């Protein structure tokens, strides 16, 4: 990857940002005449400063959730306990009760034989929670309900990318045609 106009190697410019370059005066001379490099330096300087003072909060507790996707003979099940990464997600529920997003090793993905799938959500606990499924990028859910049931079933789900939300847990799945 080149930096700005590409006159200096990227590593040299990054060292300059760290105030660690032996060639600062040459780089500064170049920066005075090169708006492309100057723009990148300023942006990185701004990003460095902003990220340094940003306070992300702590990782919230994890909620148990199992997803089963079935279509004819094809079936797969994934549990939130097998997720490799958990990241906090406020998801419109306010900063005081953030959720979690589970990311699976390859993302949850199932091969459907061109037909439609059935997705079953099984949760631990019986407190009332919102369960919904929405297409990626869409602001309206395909299905949404608030109940205390342990099992929720979404039927007639075609191929595509979806986001399943159950209480504070979010799972991204993708259903592809075989």
């Amino acid at each position, binding site marked *: *990857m080149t*930096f700005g106009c590409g006159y200096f190697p*990227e*590593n040299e410019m*990054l*060292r*300059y*940002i*760290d*105030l*660690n370059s032996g060639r*600062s005066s040459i780089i*500064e001379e170049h*920066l*005075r005449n090169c*708006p492309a490099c*100057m*723009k990148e*330096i*300023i*942006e*990185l*300087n*701004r*990003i*460095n*400063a*902003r*990220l*340094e*003072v*940003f*306070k*992300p909060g702590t*990782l919230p507790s994890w909620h148990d959730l199992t997803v089963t996707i079935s279509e004819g003979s094809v079936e797969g099940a994934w549990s939130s306990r097998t997720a*490799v*990464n*958990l*990241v*906090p*997600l*406020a*998801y*419109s529920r306010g900063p005081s009760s953030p959720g979690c*997003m589970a*990311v699976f090793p390859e*993302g949850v993905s199932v091969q459907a034989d061109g037909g439609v799938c059935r997705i079953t959500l099984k949760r631990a606990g019986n407190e009332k929670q919102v369960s919904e499924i929405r297409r990626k*990028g*869409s*602001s*309206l859910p395909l299905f949404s309900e608030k109940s205390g049931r342990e099992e929720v079933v979404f039927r007639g789900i075609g191929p595509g990318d979806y986001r399943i939300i159950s209480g504070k847990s*979010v799972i*991204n799945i993708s259903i592809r045609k075989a």
Partner: protein
Amino acid sequence: MNLDDREIKAAVSDYLGGGESSSHGLSNFKKLTEIYIYNFPRAAYRKDLDTCSGFYIYMVERLESVIKNFPLGEDIKFKTWFNCVLRNQFSHFMRFQKKESLYELNIDDYENKTAFDVFETESFDYSFLEDCMKGLDNAERLTLKFFYMPSSLTPEDIISSSDAFGLSISDILSVQAGLIKARADESSRARHAVMKINYINKVLRDLKHRLRSISLAGSQQGRAPAVPLIDRIARYEAAKARRIREMESPDRRLFAVFAPLFDNAVRAKRSLNGSKKKLKMMILYKMNARKTGRGLS
């Protein structure tokens, strides 16, 4: 939000070393950077949480190829290098998102409109302010921009401030970074003070309501009002006044970071106050010109 340079470099080294420690290195690397990656769009570009989770998934898929490119032998801070990588990846991600969200709308089907996200990040219009700032001379304009809007300095501003303040570009950049950090601290301090004031207001409202009820009951029976309650109200009023003073007082740290642009703190203060006064006059003049419909000469 900080990344431990030594720990991350050890994880990268484990991963690049291959063998058994490779998978351990990768999972360690993910653990150390996941919060950082997730919050990057929010912290750097003020994007919403949906963008954050989308970008996180996008990055997780590419993390292995990213980690392989880290120049372990060079003496670069991991954080600087990673910010550069994340910025490049984020611009790819936004382009990729834009392509995906190209909807064809049927003009008759108004329900299609719901396919778009209704939440947008706020963007401010500074055009009037910038128009007013054009009436100031270069040094005054730069003084105000550095103190109040350090994030919006352009390449031209940095070069002309290097000439105007007689400092090297790297010094100017470090003052800019310091001011961005101090501004963020200042706004979180103000937010904290506002939260405290809101809490005190709530307590005061309840206490005053109780005092009113007691006074009404007392006056009917010919008793004096409850003195301990009045004392409590007075204490809370004093605490509120203290918080308001704290919120209004200028942040010394912000000024301490700003002052190195000038020869000394007195000159920095004088210059800042002078520029502020001139900008106020300029804003009043422009607003008046707008109202009366007369252009400025």
